């Protein structure tokens, strides 16, 4: 644990100092600092990150849903601060079957379409979202195509390249 702490970027210390009471687990991806929070803590943490002048995360860059199969769903937010120029990734894991998350549309107008997309692709439910309709898919489609288990999965396995064989030569 101490080793991992040492490799964290200085932003981790800044966040710790600015938001001493926030409950999160810091980590690191190949590019950014990662904060892992529980769904219940998400809104408080993001609110803190946005409002604290030392952090000032005013821009929601991206929102990525990931199907972790037996571990439920994960949603990753990327926040950026134009003032300080730093990026943070927030990971929220929801248990299987109850993928409820608070909406961020109150904080970031940009979250609107990102959340609609995540909802239709993975089946997240964003409580309080003003317009929870399908965005990219058909209006009445209720399957979530980006889940690992989906109606067309057998075909996918046939089409895909089996792990172990070589890819194409270049």
């Amino acid at each position: 644990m101490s080793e991992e702490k040492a490799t964290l970027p200085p932003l981790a210390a800044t966040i710790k100092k600015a938001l001493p009471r926030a409950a999160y687990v810091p980590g690191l991806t190949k590019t950014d600092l990662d904060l892992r929070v529980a769904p219940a803590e998400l809104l408080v943490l993001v609110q803190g990150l946005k409002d604290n002048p030392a952090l000032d995360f005013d821009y929601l860059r991206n929102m990525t849903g990931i199907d972790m199969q037996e571990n439920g769903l994960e949603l990753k937010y990327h926040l950026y601060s134009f003032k300080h120029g730093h990026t943070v990734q927030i990971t929220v894991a929801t248990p299987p079957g109850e993928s409820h998350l608070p909406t961020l549309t109150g904080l970031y107008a940009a979250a609107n379409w990102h959340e609609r997309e995540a909802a239709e692709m993975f089946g997240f439910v964003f409580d309080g979202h003003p317009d929870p309709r399908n965005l990219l898919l058909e209006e009445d489609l209720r399957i979530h195509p980006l889940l690992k288990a989906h109606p067309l999965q057998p075909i996918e396995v046939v089409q895909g390249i089996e792990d172990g064989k070589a890819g194409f030569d270049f």
Partner: protein
Amino acid sequence: MSIWPEERLSHADTEGFHTVDMTINVGPQHPATHGVFRMVLTVDGELVTACEPYIGYLHRGLEKLSEINDYRQAMAFWDRTDYLAGLLCEQAYCMAVEKLADIEVPERAEYIRVMLSELSRINSHFMFLGAFGADVGSFGTSFTYAWRERERIYDLLEEVAGDRMFPTYYRPGGVAMDLPENFEKRCREVLGHIFQGIDDLDGLLTGNEIFVERCRALSPLTTERAINLGVTGPVLRSTGLAWDLRKAEPYSIYPQVKFDIPVGLRGDVFDRYMVRLAEMYQSARIVEQCLEQIPGGHFLNPKLPRNLRIDDAEAYVRIEGTKGEYGVHAVAKGGNRPYRMKLRSPSFCNLSALSEMVVGHYVADAIIILGSLDIVLGEVDK
């Protein structure tokens, strides 16, 4: 003696008659939507009171397709996102894979990538200028002017990569093949034409009183609102914020070339147009510098594994696409296929600001505002 029955007349000033707002369906087939995009405008006479965009007509399941193909195969789909500047998308994808697998890219390959990507950016902006001129109503003249130059760039890309729109030329770890021998001469020739083409379009559009009058002070966006809406790229820079990922979070060899970030003054439609116009000069500048600086050496990392397998890793790679922040969030969990590839598409996020921007403007202006966002539907719909 009136031709109307008495009771009909008496209705006229009671609540029996009322006005309703009319909804107009613009798209999916409409000359001004630049692809298959649909928006439902609620209009009061000629004024737009509400706008509801509908997207997804071009949804091809890019992210799912990336998951079921291996790392190198999936790249071909990413060309098709921003199909006006396919090489920029390839660059983002390759950078994401390189980040995941810690692959080194030879410097020559970086230079080749930056050169071709900047040419693609010019190409995309030419498309914007042409299409935007047509939106404002110059009857396709701007379009053909822009197309003339785009054709030259496409020819050059074809000479280098073998394909015009979707070259699939980059590889994780470099590029597929080296530049042709006469590339420098041909590229300088094309650049000369590009400068001439920009000046021509500049004279045709910016030099026109009606064009300026249509665009000036139309739908201004403040920096704060733009950031909150997640708007990036030229639209954000037109509000006066000099934020360009090539400078803000430098990648590739951009620190080694000199260029400026053009910014707007008011954030209106005219500024968005002007920022793109000025950006084309900057891109051409970058290409010129790259031509001078390009080193020899490998064009592809020679120590690449035949089968690219990546263990647990996660990266969010972002580059400055033609429309804004083009991000690729890649997650690997072993195996030769990505576990998740997410596209953060700039057009998608810019388009989400549309309904707010067009309310209160004329129908004709709604078309121009949509045009000024410069969306590419392949990128919006993924």
